[in-house]
């Protein structure tokens, strides 16, 4: 009985870019980079939790960054400071950092609303003495880039900031590489990254029911020793090894 749903009071909830919000509240649980929490909405028509990755944890302060992409995140963005919401304890398998060695280098490859989880990861890697650089791609307007405690390469689809093109074009153009690769972003990007860097760790997304492993709503096809299986993104993931993911759905 190590899991529960907490009621937290929102300390801040504000737009940091067009359709991108940052929410923070006090949260006493230990989180690993790559894990997520379930946020439950207050209105009674929308019942299912919204999974949002940990963006930053400092002391007891948890910060999440989410895109306003539908009715639920729209409602979330309307909550004001002081409003209470239900939040789960940390969930899922975060990035695999056990084998990471001091002095080696890591590249974090993020696209759009996939960037937030890489922030907490960058701090964790630096703490382990790993050299970190981030390659971040945006459609247009960038966000969070100044928060990364490392060298950041920027790319944008429209050429509004940094390199004109996607993150992989940028990586190829600059000939960037590292010992470890970590990525989060749109499915098409993750697939391209996994083809280029097969030993990348990917943070995957899938529509969820429960978000804690009870319903099998959120599966991701992966290659295993004994064939292809469907693993739970909310529990076996969200982090998977790029080389294991089967991309046909």
């Amino acid at each position, binding site marked *: 009985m190590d899991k529960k749903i907490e009621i937290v009071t929102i300390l801040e909830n504000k737009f940091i870019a067009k359709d991108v919000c940052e929410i923070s509240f006090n949260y006493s649980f230990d989180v690993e980079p790559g894990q997520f929490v379930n946020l439950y909405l207050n209105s009674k028509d929308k019942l*299912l939790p919204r999974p949002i990755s940990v963006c930053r944890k400092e002391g007891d302060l948890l910060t999440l960054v989410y895109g306003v992409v539908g009715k*639920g995140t729209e409602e979330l963005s309307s909550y004001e400071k002081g409003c209470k919401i239900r939040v789960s304890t940390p969930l899922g398998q975060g990035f695999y950092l056990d084998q990471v060695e001091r002095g080696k280098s890591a590249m974090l490859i993020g696209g759009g609303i996939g960037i937030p989880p890489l922030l907490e990861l960058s701090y964790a890697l630096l703490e382990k003495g790993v050299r970190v650089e981030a390659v971040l791609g945006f459609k247009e307007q960038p966000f969070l880039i100044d928060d990364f405690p490392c060298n950041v390469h920027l790319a944008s689809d429209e050429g509004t900031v940094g390199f004109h093109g996607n993150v992989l074009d940028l990586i190829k153009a600059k000939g960037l590489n590292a010992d470890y690769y970590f990525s989060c972003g749109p499915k098409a990007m993750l697939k391209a990254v996994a083809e280029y860097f097969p030993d990348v760790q990917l943070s995957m997304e899938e529509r969820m029911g*429960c978000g*804690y492993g*009870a319903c*099998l709503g959120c599966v991701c096809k992966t290659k295993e020793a004994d064939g292809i299986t469907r693993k739970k993104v909310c529990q076996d993931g969200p982090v998977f090894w790029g080389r294991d993911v089967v991309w046909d759905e």
Partner: protein
Amino acid sequence: MDLYFGEGMLSGMNNLDMSVNIAGVKWKNPITTASGTFSVRESGAFYDLSELGALTTKGVSYEEWEGTATPRIAETYGGMLNSIGLQNKGVGPFIEEELPLLKKYDTPIIVNVVGKTIEEYCRVVERLSETDIDMLELNISCPNIKEGGISFGTEPKMAFSLVEKVRKITKKALIVKLSPNVTDITEIARSVEAAGADCLSLINTLLGMRIDVAKRKAVLANRVGGLSGPAIKPVALRMVYEVRRAVNLPIIGMGGIMTGEDAVEFLMAGADAISVGTASLIDPTAPLRIKNELREFMLEYNYKSIKEIELLEE
């Protein structure tokens, strides 16, 4: 509206008996988990499963089922659609990996059984009958692939044959879970009663659909899926009420139960026990909370046993 503690309170809470006897199996209280919305390891991380009346597993087939493509989940107003497609590893791994975990709790175990043919159901039931599980729940909403994919649960004769065959090969208490996607649920209820069922559970999900208007396609990869949650409660309650008047078997009622009050509605409509499904996805400890709310209701209105909870005037 605060609680009113009547005389029952004075004589102590020990007077209150929440236990029920379902087809010969004693449950501590009338609350179980609805199949597919409960997983022993994951739900057990939130609360002590021994607190429940029984634990119902997700559907178990003979060999591994892959389930359907993703997305498998869609949210609807006051409910949700799922098309998990009964993904599971099959009865062998179930017995080896899941069952030992379930046995750790002091709570009867109900195994939900699925199949694509009568033979497949029978093979699962055979294997499970050799174990020390307590009850079987036949999910008869599966498509019968030998009859053009028509669901066993929508055709009284097919439902009868299935239950009759299964009945012959097991002595375990046999629950049959009915599909609500029928013109007359009492017809199916009567035919599975005649075929030897010990208990009925209802309802399974209603068939539904959602469309993503921006993408111009169904939200679910499978297009249609099963609707569950509070939205369907009135339909479920009506069906329990109808079936109660049609058969003598005990009934496990479910469909949108979110609160103790909802549970009471089902008990009053004629259910002997209830299952909590979608509520567990929204609040992982829902079955426990609902049990506690049911107890509070009994104290407030001075009910001494679950049996006393029924409609007044008929």
